């Protein structure tokens, strides 16, 4: 006899969605959060794509704590003195059912956890899960917390304890972890009046902008981002850990460099620094994913490395919400069937495999490595920017050169070999095509 049916560890998007589905299935669910409230420990600054919530919270957009609906999506390529931007705008993204939104995760997570409580899950805050309880067979039977009298038993534990999941590691689900699979996300939140943000980013009302940046990271492999909230901007960089360490670069100086770039400085000028934070991101996709199922245990969200970092697609919260949802469903299925072994919980893997959660990761398996490679990071941006500069430069009385000639010259000048270009192009085509 266990204390409860399901323990969900972590009150982030994965944990709350797991708790919602399990509780709605009639299970006795406890959701344990280490912070004083869900989201309180978060440093997220990004775009949430909540379409997966359609089935879980109908018309979620009417109540979700959104900052701005993203109606402009820009991809910016930076060299020290150049910037090339591909800018897309769709007014359709500013109306139901919407596409993506910027949000403060303390608000978002708090909101989602509220739905978990409404579904009947019991939320326990300010409590750190310090380990797993195991049966002699090795099956997970509960968790140990840092509170007195802190053991709690359950039929199924769902670990949504975020990147670098101690529970998944304790259960032996990560075969190995390698620093090269992680990036360091560093973010500043800058306050500006809403009218100033609207004017600088050419948006109105609660419409916002998502700018993803290649380059501008001070020579460290990674990327930058700039998102508009209602009255703040989230600007930051995502840096490959191994390169950051090797170059002995300081992330705050890299952000400062990005903010000084001629293409970025006018956007962030006079912003008052409200917050500086950093967090590790699991960026290697399928390459680093652990086993997600053990006897009595499921792993979801960042804890399962379900974060998609594929250059033009940077998504995490939607994968977390979906995996949490499917984990909750699978747990309910196993409890009903009375089979709490990995076999009984296999419905989780099936759900992940049949949906975008693993389909996208399989398809984009090689994208993270490509995006963070030295050529994509350092050679191609300079080459492309130079091509653009020569395309638009008027060198009269010289006649305009042909694009093919410019490409060939700039490829040679950048030191890019044809076969590397072909190989990267093929990987890119296979991934994104």
């Amino acid at each position: 006899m266990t204390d409860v049916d399901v323990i969900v560890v972590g009150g982030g998007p994965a944990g709350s969605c797991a708790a919602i589905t399990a509780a709605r299935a009639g299970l006795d669910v406890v959701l344990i959060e280490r912070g004083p409230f869900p989201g309180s420990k978060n440093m997220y600054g990004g775009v949430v794509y909540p379409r997966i919530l359609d089935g879980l919270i109908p018309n979620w957009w009417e109540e979700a704590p959104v900052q701005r609906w993203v109606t402009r999506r820009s991809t910016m390529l930076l060299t020290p003195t150049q910037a090339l931007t591909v800018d897309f705008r769709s007014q359709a993204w500013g109306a139901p059912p919407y596409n993506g939104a910027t949000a403060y995760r303390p608000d978002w997570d708090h909101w989602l956890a509220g739905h978990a409580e409404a579904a009947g899950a019991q939320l326990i805050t300010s409590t750190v899960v310090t380990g797993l309880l195991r049966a002699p067979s090795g099956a997970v039977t509960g968790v140990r917390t840092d509170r007195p009298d802190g053991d709690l038993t359950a039929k199924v534990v769902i670990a949504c304890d975020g990147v670098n999941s101690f529970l998944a590691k304790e259960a032996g689900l990560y075969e190995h972890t390698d620093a090269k699979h992680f990036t360091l996300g560093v973010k500043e939140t800058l306050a500006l009046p809403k009218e100033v943000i609207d004017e600088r980013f050419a948006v109105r009302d609660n419409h916002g902008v998502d700018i993803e940046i290649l380059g501008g990271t001070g020579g460290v492999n990674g990327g930058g981002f700039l998102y508009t909230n209602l009255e703040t901007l989230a600007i930051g960089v995502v840096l490959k850990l191994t390169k950051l360490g090797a170059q002995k670069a300081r992330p705050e100086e890299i952000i400062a460099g990005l903010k000084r770039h001629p293409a970025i400085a006018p956007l962030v000028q006079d912003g008052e620094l409200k917050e500086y934070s950093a967090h590790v991101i699991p960026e290697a996709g399928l390459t680093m994913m652990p086993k997600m199922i053990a006897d009595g245990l499921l792993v979801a969200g960042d804890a399962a490395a379900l974060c998609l970092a594929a250059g033009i697609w940077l998504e995490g919260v939607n994968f977390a919400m979906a995996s949490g949802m499917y984990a909750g469903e699978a747990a309910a299925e196993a409890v009903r069937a009375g089979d709490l072994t990995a076999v009984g919980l296999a419905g989780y893997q099936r759900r992940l495999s049949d949906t975008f959660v693993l389909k996208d990761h399989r398809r984009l398996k090689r994208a993270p490595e490509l995006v963070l490679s030295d050529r994509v990071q350092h050679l191609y941006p300079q080459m492309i920017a130079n091509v653009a500069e020569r395309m638009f430069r008027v060198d009269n009385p010289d006649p305009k050169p042909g694009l093919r000639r410019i490409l060939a010259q700039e490829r040679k000048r950048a030191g890019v070999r044809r076969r590397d270009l072909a190989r990267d192009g093929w990987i890119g085509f296979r991934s994104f095509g």
Partner: protein
Amino acid sequence: MSSPIIIACLKWVAHPGEPHDERFAGASPADRAALELALQQAKELGGTVTAVTVGPPATETVLRDAVAAGADRAVRVDGPAAMLSSDVAAGIAGVAEGAAWVWCGDYSLDRGTGSVPAFLAAALGAQQALGVIDVQFAAPGPAARVTRRLDGGRREVLDVTGPAVVSVEGAVADLRRAGLGALRVATSASIDVVPLRSPARRLKAVVQPYRPRAMALAAPDGSPLERLRLLTDAAAATAARGETVTLAPPDAAARIVAALRGWGYLDS
């Protein structure tokens, strides 16, 4: 003889850093210390602890925390969020009648006046020991030895016997960490809700910036000339001109004494 009832008074306050976000709200450190002392004393005396708060339903979170920590009963006196201290005390007094001890925080994080404990002691006709910075429970017996902070860095040690109202500073005790089981039970624990004895008078909204209360400063002693020297810091101004000399230690000491005398510091 029935077991003594010990009251812990708790106020639900916004966090000073996030005054508009209820997620950060909770009991002040001083109130948490009061609850811990109530729990310790209840164990000493074999009594029961009743946690009391005054306010709307949202304030019940502090009561649930108290139940999780070990309070036997939780009572919310139904009232508005902001009330006059005397009305708050009257509301608590309705619950605390007959209690052997009442423990309160010295003052709350939301710039409270710290006057509720005094009003409460008056309403209950109980002894009071306010601004307490140390508590020792005497064993055996129902007394507590408390140390009060007085002006000018002085201390007062009192042996207090109930019924008494004691207000403590936050550093006196750390509230124990609630057990997981107790925490789970507390989320669904029943809270007794009682009405205010008399209609509460709401506090007027404070719109001006916070200003600390004026402090009474004694006039400096001495002649007008001396007061002038004090106010204008004349000695320091003279000293600021200074000089650098290299002397043997006895000569250096003599030079310093001479300089101090010259600036008027050593005049008898």
